[in-house]
């Protein structure tokens, strides 16, 4: 069943490989015209991403928030809602868990503190999704608009607290929160930055997949997503379903926030995770909102952004060289999606 979905596409595998090679060749020619050696650069990009354990770890770290913010989009999408709120939910999850880490669980041992922080993060993201949820079912306001606009509010909300009561006293005026105590940092693999967040993200993806595919609840969600009228006639309370999925999506988005802060940053900064929500939306779209397909697409985008640094470093070209590559790949995927879509 799954295998069918993964490989179901209008294009044969040969065509896809040709397309990927085509991107490499065209971009390589472009690099060459700019005075760089494309073979060397591709080699370095591969080295930086999948060439060794370190590179794979970096890709995994980067993919973690993308998977979660993509799920934050994919879950509401099951009932036909288009949420763009991963960005704001991530920020609020990071904010609420930072509050919890700084004021409540500061001295807790890891085995209680970390699960509690994860809960706090999920709660923060969920609360942020309550607003569009209520507006949706009470006032019938379009959830795409509300979730998108609330992203900006969330960004400034984080700034408000970081410049205010959450500002670290020993930061010399620099806007960031106090450091999380060591017991509240996600465990990492020795000598690397790889933390257990990727396992959590993959586990959440599997759970979401299982629930939507194999449970009664998942079946009802798909009915609502397929045809609202039919769902109503068969006795499903559509509004409740929409509300709950928005909240659950928000909670998953919030998880991305706490994992980023506790796993990577160690303290909250105004720019923590900025942009990840939108990349997550892109991932969800590329994966057709399929919870398991989200994982490889998140890894793909993570690899591009990790490899991008190597590209810039070894080509010696302007930083916009990375953006050109990203834009190029996205346009090609967009073209495929357009023609291969349902």
């Amino acid at each position, binding site marked *: 069943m799954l295998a069918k979905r993964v490989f179901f596409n209008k294009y044969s595998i040969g065509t896809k490989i040709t397309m990927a090679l085509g991107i490499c060749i065209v971009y390589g020619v472009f690099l060459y015209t700019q005075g760089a050696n494309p073979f060397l650069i591709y080699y370095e990009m591969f080295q930086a991403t999948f060439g060794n354990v370190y590179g794979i770890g970096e890709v995994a770290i980067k993919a973690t928030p993308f998977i979660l913010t993509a799920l934050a989009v994919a879950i509401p999408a099951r009932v036909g809602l288009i949420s763009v709120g991963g960005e704001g939910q991530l920020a609020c999850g990071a904010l609420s868990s930072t509050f919890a880490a700084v004021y409540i669980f500061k001295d807790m041992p890891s085995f209680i503190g970390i699960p509690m922080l994860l809960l706090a993060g999920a709660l923060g993201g969920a609360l942020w999704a309550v607003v569009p949820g209520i507006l949706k079912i009470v006032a019938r306001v379009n959830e795409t608009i509300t979730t998108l606009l609330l992203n900006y509010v969330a960004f400034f909300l984080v700034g408000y607290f970081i410049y205010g009561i959450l500002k670290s006293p020993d930061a010399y005026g620099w806007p960031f929160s106090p450091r999380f105590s060591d017991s509240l940092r996600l465990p990492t693999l020795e000598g690397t930055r790889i933390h257990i967040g990727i396992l959590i993200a993959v586990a959440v993806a599997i759970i979401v997949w299982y629930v939507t595919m194999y449970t009664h609840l998942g079946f009802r969600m798909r009915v609502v997503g397929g045809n609202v009228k039919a769902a109503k006639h068969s006795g499903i309370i559509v509004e409740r379903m929409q509300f709950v999925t928005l909240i659950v999506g928000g909670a998953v988005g919030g998880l991305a926030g706490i994992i980023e802060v506790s796993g990577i940053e160690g303290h909250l900064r105004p*720019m923590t995770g900025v942009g990840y929500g939108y990349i997550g939306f892109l991932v969800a779209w590329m994966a057709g909102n399929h919870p398991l397909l989200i994982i490889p697409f998140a890894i793909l985008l993570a690899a591009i952004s990790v490899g991008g640094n190597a590209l810039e470093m070894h080509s010696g070209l302007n930083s916009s060289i990375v953006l050109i590559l990203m834009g190029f790949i996205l346009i090609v995927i967009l073209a495929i999606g357009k023609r291969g879509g349902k």
Partner: protein
Amino acid sequence: MRKRTLFGIIITFLVIAIAYFNNSSSISAGEVKSNMGVGGDAIGFLFVGPRDDYGYNQAAYNGSEAVKEAFPFMKLLRVENVPETAEAERVMEEMIRSGAKVIFPTSYGHLDPALEVAKRHRDVVFLHQGGLKTAENLGTYFSNIFEVIYLSGVAAGKMTKTNKLGFIASFPIPQVLLNINAYTLGVRSVNPDANVIAVFNGSWCDPGKQASAANTLIDQGCDVLTQHQDCTKTIIETAERRGVMSSGYHCDALEIAPEGWITGAYWNWDDLYVNMCDVILNGEFKGSPYDGRFRTGIHEGVAKLARFGKNVPDDVKKLVKEKQKEILDYKFYPFTGPVRDQSGTVRIEPGVVPTVTELETTDYLVEGSIGNIPK
């Protein structure tokens, strides 16, 4: 049944993983090598913005060009637009993987990520631009540009007609506050009636915010604008277009404001960067002045006064040059007490000459500046 089995498997998997990761989470202290920084075939530079921002990053990039010329056998790894988050850690790890044993994280917010990476790579030397914290293999360097900014303030204080000068600042960190204070002291030294209005826009380079702040300040009657931002072009151009004057920072930008340019303070990192690389590559980092907090400035030519604009009268030029000579001859120091803060409280006692270390913990604005430090 199946549901429970699946969840059981997932949870067991997670528990095992957490236990495994936990066991190995303590980072073993790496061996401290005596010849740290030696043996690499590359030098890394991180910039927070683009290389052509008419500002901080352009100045640092120019410095890296000098390094490139001085060490043709070393590969230069340069990455622009590195955010001041853990993203910077990844860039530095990648540089080390590519053979760099000397790394220059050039933005203030790159310090914490650099300290993290420094813990993991004891054989790599990090030279952070402007940091207050150091480590075994991480030194910081900076140039006391505030002495030049004081001179820039003297010129601006003479030039202003409305006695209102606008200062567009980024974050209320000590170095920024220090520059606002130096500018204000310079202005006030020649024009006790003038005030400097400081606004904090919470970013290093956001042209939209810069333009709106510049326009607001001009609308409030400011006729000289200056800034502590990373990219300076927008503010200088806005001032020029609105017919008001500007004092520059980071780079000499006379050519983009031929009418309104007064003068400014800029960095000249070339010789310092080259010398630091030289010392480290010779295996002499430990015990050198760069191992710790290294501060330099106007005397060494690392901070310089820019050219004067065409509308600056000769008597103003002469006055500024005289002050500059006094500073160069150690006859005058801008922060000699008494220095009062906005509330009138004396922060530096009369006759006291504060050390640079003391100044770098500045958390107040001096008398004559209007504006609140974001709390």
